[in-house]
C-alpha cells in the first residue's frame, strides 16, 4: 500500500515537447553533443559524399602513389590525407567509406531488427508453446559459433556488400527478439495493457497502441548500439577480405589494403582506422546520452548528480558547472 504521490512533471518520452527538449537536453552533455554532431556530419558525408569528395575515390593515378598527407614534407594540399598505393586520394576514400559503413550498418540493423522484433513480438504476445519454440530457436542460434558461421557462409556465397549485410543480419537478429520478447512479456503483465485487453481491444490495437510505443526507446538504443557493432564487424570482415570488395571502398578494406604499407605510409591505415574509431565513439557517446535521456529515472539521477557536483564545487566558486559525462 501507500505509493508515493510525488507529482512528477517530467514528460515521458513520446509526449509532445519531448522533441523540443531534445536540444535543450543535448546541451547538458558535451560528449553527447559531440557524438550527435559527428553523426550528422557522417550522414551528410554519406549522402553528399560524391559531391564533396575532391576526387573519385576509385580513381587511380600511378604517378601520385603513396603521397604523404599535406603537412608532411612531400605532401601537398591537393591530397590532404595523402594518397594510397594506387594513387587514390585517401581523403576522398575516407569520405566515400562513410557511405558503405552507414549502408551496411543501417541495412543490417533494419533487416535484423525487423525480423528480430517480429519474432520477439510474436513470441511475447502469443506466449505458451509458440514462445517456447521461438525462444529455443533463438537459444540454439545464439549457441552457434557465430563468426565461424559467418566465415563459412561468406566463403560459400562469395564476399560482397550484400552478402555481408545478409550474413550479419542472419547472425544478429536474436538480440532484438530477446529484448522485444522480454519487454512484451513484462508489458503484458502491466495493468494498463491488461486493462486494454479487458476493455476489449483487439490484439493489433494492443500491440500498436499500447505495446509498441514502449518499445521504441529501448529498440532505438539497442539499434544504435548494434549499429556500432555492425560498423566494427563490417570493418573487420572487410579487413579479413570477406566483406566489401574493391573497387568499392570501405574503411575496413582500406585498413586492410594499407596494412602492408604500414612502414612506408602510416597514413593509409591511420585515417580510415580513425574514421572507424571516431564514428563508433561518437555513436556510442550519443547512444549513451540517449539511453540516459529516454529513461526518466536515469535522467533524474543525472540531474541530481550534476546538482550535487555543482553544490560541491559551488562552495569554491559560483560558476555553473557543466553536466557530467554520464551513463
Amino acid at each position: 500500500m501507500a505509493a508515493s504521490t510525488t507529482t512528477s512533471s517530467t514528460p515521458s518520452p513520446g509526449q509532445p515537447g519531448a522533441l523540443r527538449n531534445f536540444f535543450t537536453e543535448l546541451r547538458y552533455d558535451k560528449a553527447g553533443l559531440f557524438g550527435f554532431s559527428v553523426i550528422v556530419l557522417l550522414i551528410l558525408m554519406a549522402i553528399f559524399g560524391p559531391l564533396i569528395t575532391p576526387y573519385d575515390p576509385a580513381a587511380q593515378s600511378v604517378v601520385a602513389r603513396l603521397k604523404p598527407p599535406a603537412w608532411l614534407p612531400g605532401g601537398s594540399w591537393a591530397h590532404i590525407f595523402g594518397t594510397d598505393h594506387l594513387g587514390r586520394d585517401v581523403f576522398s576514400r575516407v569520405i566515400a567509406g562513410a557511405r558503405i559503413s552507414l549502408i551496411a550498418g543501417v541495412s543490417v540493423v533494419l533487416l535484423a531488427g525487423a525480423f528480430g522484433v517480429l519474432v520477439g513480438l510474436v513470441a511475447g504476445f502469443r506466449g505458451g508453446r509458440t514462445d517456447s519454440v521461438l525462444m529455443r530457436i533463438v537459444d540454439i542460434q545464439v549457441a552457434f559459433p557465430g563468426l565461424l558461421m559467418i566465415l563459412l557462409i561468406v566463403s560459400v556465397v562469395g564476399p560482397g556488400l550484400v552478402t555481408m549485410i545478409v550474413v550479419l543480419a542472419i547472425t544478429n537478429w536474436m538480440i532484438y527478439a530477446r529484448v522485444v520478447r522480454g519487454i512484451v512479456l513484462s508489458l503484458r503483465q502491466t495493468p494498463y495493457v491488461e486493462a486494454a485487453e479487458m476493455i476489449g481491444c483487439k490484439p493489433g490495437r494492443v500491440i500498436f497502441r499500447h505495446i509498441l510505443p514502449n518499445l521504441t526507446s529501448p529498440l532505438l538504443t539497442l539499434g544504435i548500439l548494434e549499429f556500432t557493432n555492425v560498423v566494427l564487424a563490417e570493418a573487420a570482415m572487410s579487413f579479413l577480405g570477406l566483406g566489401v570488395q574493391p573497387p568499392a571502398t570501405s574503411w575496413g578494406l582500406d585498413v586492410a589494403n594499407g596494412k602492408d604499407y604500414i612502414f612506408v605510409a602510416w597514413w593509409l591505415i591511420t585515417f580510415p582506422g580513425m574514421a572507424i574509431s571516431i564514428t563508433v565513439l561518437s555513436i556510442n557517446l550519443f547512444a549513451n546520452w540517449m539511453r540516459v535521456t529516454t529513461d526518466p529515472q536515469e535522467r533524474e539521477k543525472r540531474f541530481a548528480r550534476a546538482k550535487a557536483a555543482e553544490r560541491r564545487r559551488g562552495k569554491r566558486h559560483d560558476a555553473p558547472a557543466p553536466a557530467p559525462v554520464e551513463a
Partner: protein
Amino acid sequence: MTTMDAISDMPLLEVERLCVEFDTRAGVVHGLRGVDLSIRRGETLAIVGESGSGKSVTAQAVMGLIDVPGRIVSGDIKWKGQSLLTGDGPKRAREIRGKEVSLIFQDPMTSLNPLLTVGAQIAEVLQRHLGMTKTQARTRVLELLEAVGIPAPPRRANQYPHELSGGMRQRIMIAMAIACEPQLLIADEPTTALDVTIQAQVLELIAGLQETLNLSVILITHDLGVVAGLCRRVAVMYAGRIVEMGLADDLFERPSHPYTQGLIRSTPRLDDRMNRLIAIEGSPPSLLSPPVGCSFRARCPIAVERCTEQPPLAVVHPGASAACWRPSVPAWQESPPLEAALT
C-alpha cells in the same frame, strides 16, 4: 503498556527543526520542513501520516542515510544530547548506526541481500560492531532467531531470503536490528507489506521486544490501527511537518488538528457500522512549492484568514500540541446517522 519508571528524563534522540530538500528536475522538493521530535529511553513513539508526508525521510535522516539527491539543509539531530550533524557528529553517527540505533524497512522482500544466507547477514552486524568471530556470531545468530520466534533456527540461518515468507523475512530484519541490543529501534512501516494475521504477529513481537529489552521504538505507519495498539505517543505528519503530537489515548479521543480529526474519521473501522465513510476532500499539496502558511488549509473546512500564516506547534492541552490556529475546533459534523441497509 511500558512501565513509566523505565523512561528517564534525558531524551535519547532529539530532532530539531530539521529541513531536508531533494533536487529533482522539476524543482526542489521540500521533503521535511522543520521537524521537531524527541524520544526518551524506553518510550514508544508513532509517526503517522499519509504517503509522502516525510515519515521515511525523517527516519533516514536520523540514520544518516540521506543521499543524493537529498540533503539536510538545516536543523539538527542530537543523540544523547550530542549533535550528529556538526563537528565530530558524522563520525559518531556512523558508529552508532546499526549499533545503538537500528532501522527496519517496510519491504522485507527487497531489504535483504538475496545472495547471502540470512544468518550471514545477521552475523555481519555482530562482526562489525561487536567484533565477534564467525563462530561467536553464529551462536548469537541462533539466539536472535530464537528470540524473534523463528522455528528451527539452525536450519533457517542457512537459508536464503527467497526461501522465507514475508513474515519470516521481517522477523529476520528485526533480529538484525536488535542484534547489538540497540537503544532505539526505528521501524519504518514494518507491517505494511504483510497480511493482517502476520502483521499481528510482528507487532506482537516488536511489543514484546520493546518490553524485554527496554527499547525505545519509533514506529512509522500510515495505519492508525497499528498505532493504537503499540505506541504511547503519536506524532502526526502532514506535508513535511509535524502537525500534531500527543499521547495516543488523548489524541484519538480528542484530536486537535483538523487533519488528525479527518484522518481518524476517514479511517474505516471494523467495529463501526457506518455505511458511508467520511472523506477529506482534495489531496495533499505538492512539496515542490508547498503553500505558505498551514499546508492543510486548502482541504480544511474550518480554515480562516489567519491560516495563511504558518501556525507553530504549540501546546493545546497537557500532553498534546498541535500546529493549528484553531485547534480542537471540530472540523466535521458528527457522523451522519446510521443508514439503513442499501435497499
